[in-house]
């Protein structure tokens, strides 16, 4: 492990232990899971950890309007005032021939504390569209201007579904990840998994994948977490249970928690 930079903390209690210390910085990682597993909560926790250490953090919102994110995170009482949020949600499409603006490369992220309480409305005469190319250009400009240490892309699934054409999906996703690697930020990309069946291909492109699992039994919803892949580091193989508590996601990675707690 010579020459390997010090690992950074994920901000999720118990997860760093599974990752044998945390994440190797300046690389992209995947956080995958079915709907309602807790991906967004965990990724915001990752940024919050950075904020606490005085790092500059960016959240790219692709599936949820920023005003809702702000409300949704309020119950956890985290100080997210300085977290920067980039609204990359596309507008309502126009069916009439009106000018379509690609998301401007001059667009600025807003600080969490300055976010509007209501949703941004599609203007009457133009419609904003987010494509993967424009987003990439925009991020490139931003990364030159400011040194972000941590970036969250929520979610790659939305990027894939709404911001690129179907035939170019895997190639474009790959190049987007390559772009994030070259930008030398530690990034966490969320991926939506179907409730049943196999994982989509983008899950295999990153340096590491943390996967969330969600099941039902008589006691309600049970959540589990596993490290599927982690290049350049050893990690824990066991699948551990985790809970979403009043203070965020907490992984129970105690010594005998693995299998015994799974039934």
């Amino acid at each position, binding site marked *: 492990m010579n020459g390997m930079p010090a690992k950074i903390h994920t901000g999720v209690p118990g997860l760093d232990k599974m990752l044998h210390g945390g994440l190797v910085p300046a690389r992209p990682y995947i956080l995958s899971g079915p*709907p309602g597993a807790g991906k967004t909560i965990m990724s915001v926790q990752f940024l919050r950890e950075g904020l606490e250490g005085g790092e500059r953090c960016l959240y790219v919102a692709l599936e949820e309007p920023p005003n809702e994110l702000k*409300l949704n995170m309020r119950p956890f009482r985290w100080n997210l005032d300085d977290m920067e949020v980039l609204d990359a949600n596309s507008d*309502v499409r126009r069916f009439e021939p009106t000018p379509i603006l690609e998301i401007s490369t001059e667009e600025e992220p807003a600080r969490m504390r300055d976010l509007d309480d209501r949703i941004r409305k*599609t203007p009457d005469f133009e419609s904003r569209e987010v494509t993967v190319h424009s987003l990439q250009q925009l991020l490139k400009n931003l990364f030159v201007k400011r040194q972000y240490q941590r970036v969250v892309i929520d979610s790659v699934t939305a990027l894939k579904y709404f911001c690129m054409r179907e035939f170019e999906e895997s190639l474009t996703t790959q190049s987007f990840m390559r772009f994030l690697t070259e930008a030398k930020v530690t990034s966490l990309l969320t991926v939506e998994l179907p409730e049943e069946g196999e994982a989509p291909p983008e899950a295999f492109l990153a340096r590491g994948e943390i996967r969330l699992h969600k099941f039902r039994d*008589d006691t*309600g919803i049970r959540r*589990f977490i596993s490290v599927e892949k982690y290049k350049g580091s050893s990690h824990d193989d066991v699948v551990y249970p985790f809970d979403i508590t009043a203070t965020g996601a907490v992984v129970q990675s105690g010594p005998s928690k*693995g299998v*015994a707690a799974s039934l």
Partner: protein
Amino acid sequence: MERVKTGVDGLDAMLNGGLLPARPYIVSGPTGSGKSILATQFLFDGLKRNEPCLLVTLDEPPIEVKSNMGVFGWNLDHLKILDATPDVRAHKRQRSVIDVGTALDVRDMEDVSDIRQSSQIRALEVTVHSVQKMIKQEFSGRLEKTKERYKRIVIDSMTALKMFSMQGEDSRILIQSFMRFLSELESTTLIVSEHLDRSAIETEFFLGRGEIRMLKWVDGSTVRRAISIEKFRGSRFDDHVRPLAITPAGIVVYADQQVATTNGGGMKPGESLLEMRIIDDISNVLESALHKVEEAQRRQIPVRDLEVSLSRAMLHFQRKNYQKAMKAALACNSQLEQRLGVVPPPPAASVPPPPKEVAR
């Protein structure tokens, strides 16, 4: 924050008080599970609070909605209904096909009396675009006239909209745009949709801020119903499956009761008989492997690696990957037996002998 009541007390209790306002939610479930009733009950609750409510019907003509909901004795007179059911297709080509959007048809429920007859000269065709246009016209028209916004909207159903009006287009982007449109209206919206293939990610489920799932299965000779919350952004919720009944007064959710599953194994209701037997078999193997792990830990025999493969087997099991689960569980079990030094007992009749090769 203030919550929007669904009109079903038990469901509101599960939702920790109700839905968060101004967001779109999904109501899913198989046919006959009570989705439309729940959605209508949600609108009725709004009407009781004097809130303007809009039902966009794509499945059933308004007259059928009226008579179907009549049995519950709800006063829906002031419910606005937007009739977006497509006409009988005119098969002769010279007849012009026009979008529904240009023939706005929003009525009070009390004025609904007969099915709209397809016009002789033009046939209405429903597209996402036209539905969006109709809702927008109605929304801004109402805002202008009465200075009131629609507080509650129901789209019944998205399945119909997808099936009939998105052929040959990029449906993901169309749905994304439609969901964005609904979000910008800032009404609390219920979207009725069926999730047919759980191994695919359906756009509206992915973008909805929550999913209320309705379940229906046959238990012996009775039909049973239940309800669960699968996702609810920004709020705590009750994560149990709760029993549900359709009564003469509408839907009732028993938020303090458990669903009695037939096999007691904590599996999802509605499994077929064969599947249940496989499930039983695998759980037996898993259980015996677990006991052996405990035993090994007590005797301080290192079995960490097997614990890992066992947890993988359980994941396969939970994901309904029964073949992989069985294989992994059996492999684990036999390995554990070796380490514990016990003589393998003769295999049970329903369980094939453990394979010699160890997967993973």
